């Protein structure tokens, strides 16, 4: 297990390096940040001066090296708008984003996994059809529209929950539903497929044949083995959740990293965009490492596979 952990950690570091490189490529190669940051009527002299201040006049490899150094030491520059280090601003908001993403994740798992199991056990019957209808519609609904509709119905018409901000549990409910529904939809479909596959296996028949109660068969034997693809999806989809958080935060005025990053685009606060994207992307890499390690615990066979 230790060896497996070390191997996964090494792989993660490599991916993290790739992610940093991709951030760099996306930010440097898609245009001139200096031109983006300055107002439209800025003079050429101002442009040249800013390029020099930002170090954009240096060769790309040199810029890349200093970007890497900045990423390692956490130096992304000073926010123009807030006159504070960009990373600090982002890290201040990170708990809010993670709180929202985890709330959505928990909500999705709590709803979708039982739904998928019920659908699998009642294959072809009404419960199955209803659960899958929910899944198909959920997958077709954009986050942001879901959020607007929830605000319209639950907050404006019914007056049950606040429309925006962060603070109490009540503030968390609508954003979590908004962010979690899409995920719950794909999770329910996958849980159903995974359960159906496992329920057809010999050991499940054996467990039934030796007279175990159906509850034990399903929860102890089937569910544990069906959980590997489900956990894979949770890990993969966490990135989508972080991306979705950007949108959800914007709708509900949730003070997270995503909203900060999007607002910073419009005020041309480039260091903050850079730090925000970087921190969120690395959070996702970290989550995937956790998921990989969790696999090793759940399915011992995985520890010895892919020794490449």
């Amino acid at each position, binding site marked *: 297990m230790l060896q497996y952990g070390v191997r996964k950690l090494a792989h993660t570091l490599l991916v993290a390096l790739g992610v940093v490189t*991709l951030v760099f490529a996306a930010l440097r190669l898609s245009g001139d940040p200096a031109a983006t940051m300055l107002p439209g009527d800025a003079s050429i002299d101002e442009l040249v001066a800013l390029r020099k201040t930002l170090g954009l006049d240096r060769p790309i490899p040199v810029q890349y090296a200093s970007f890497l150094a900045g990423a390692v030491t956490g130096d992304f520059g000073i926010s123009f708008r807030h006159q504070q280090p960009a990373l600090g601003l982002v890290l201040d908001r990170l708990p809010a984003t993670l709180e929202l993403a985890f709330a959505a994740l928990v909500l999705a798992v709590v709803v979708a996994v039982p739904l998928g199991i019920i659908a699998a056990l009642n294959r072809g019957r009404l419960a199955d059809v209803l659960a899958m209808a929910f899944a198909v519609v959920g997958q077709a609904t954009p986050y942001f529209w879901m959020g607007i509709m929830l605000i319209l119905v639950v907050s404006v018409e019914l007056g049950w929950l606040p429309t925006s901000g962060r603070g109490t549990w009540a503030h968390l409910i609508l954003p979590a539903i908004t962010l979690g529904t899409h995920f719950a939809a794909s999770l329910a479909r996958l849980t159903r497929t995974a359960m159906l596959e496992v329920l057809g296996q010999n050991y499940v028949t054996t467990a039934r044949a030796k007279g175990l109660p159906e509850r034990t068969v399903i929860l102890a034997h089937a569910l544990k083995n069906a959980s590997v693809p489900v956990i894979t999806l949770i890990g993969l989809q966490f990135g989508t959740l972080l991306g979705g958080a*950007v949108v959800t935060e914007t709708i509900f005025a949730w003070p997270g990293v995503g909203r900060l990053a999007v607002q910073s685009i419009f005020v041309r606060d480039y260091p903050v965009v850079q730090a925000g994207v970087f921190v969120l992307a690395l959070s996702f890499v970290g989550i995937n490492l956790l998921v990989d390690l969790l696999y090793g615990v759940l399915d011992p066979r995985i520890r010895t596979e892919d020794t490449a």
Partner: protein
Amino acid sequence: MRRLRWPLLLPALPVIVAVAAALLAPWVAPASPTSGNLAARLRPPAWISGGSGTRLLGTDLLGRDLLSRLIWGARISLLIALAATVLGAVVGSLIGLVSGYYRGRIDRVVTKLIDVQLAFPFVLLAIAVIAVAGASIPVLVIVLAIGSWVGHARIIRGLVLSLRERDYVQAARALGADTPRILFRHLLPEILSVILILATFDVGRIIILESTLSFLGLGVQPPTPSWGSDLRDAAAYVRQAWWTSVFPGLAIMVVVLGVNLVGDALRDALDPRTQSRARA
């Protein structure tokens, strides 16, 4: 194609309607999508008191006809989705084809690239690129294609890895067929149906991503009508005019639902291997 029957027609209906609206926008839209009558702003739909028969779905904040904006918006949204899907599918499939066929160093580089990009949430990548390149339709198409090539490359690569060992490929090689001929005459036809299925699901995904970016203000810019950017304005006054938020969102949802169900049906019809699994 034997299973392509009525269940395909029902979900295809919203897609057909949307495509027709997009193609025929100048003729079927009852009013201009961009010039409105400020005196008639925020009029409710026709069936609600205060609504007007000529403004079926009501008007928006600037007094523009909502139905006309939806129809013209279909044109923009579908065009972007189609362009990005084709670009992503072509680039992704080519990379997957070459990487799976040649293996070796090219394959290792491609696999790492795929790993890295999968570790990068799409919306964040889009934010990083659009923050610098600025928001415009060409940038949007490229960004969306960047978000979709990976899925194609990964799956096609896997398929080609196993197909290249098949007897008929070996035979073609033994007969002296050159690599482009093997890739495009022998392997490509085999995987075309998979590419088509993947691309169909991509259309749905990309419509949602495009509307999401446009909603954030990073995609289609006003006054160009698009379902996502219309919702951006509408969200601000959802209390006063629910219809401006409800209809564009419904349009997105119904069309994406239709595209996804068509994708399901296509997969069942074209790919017998997944049938038992998908419909189990």
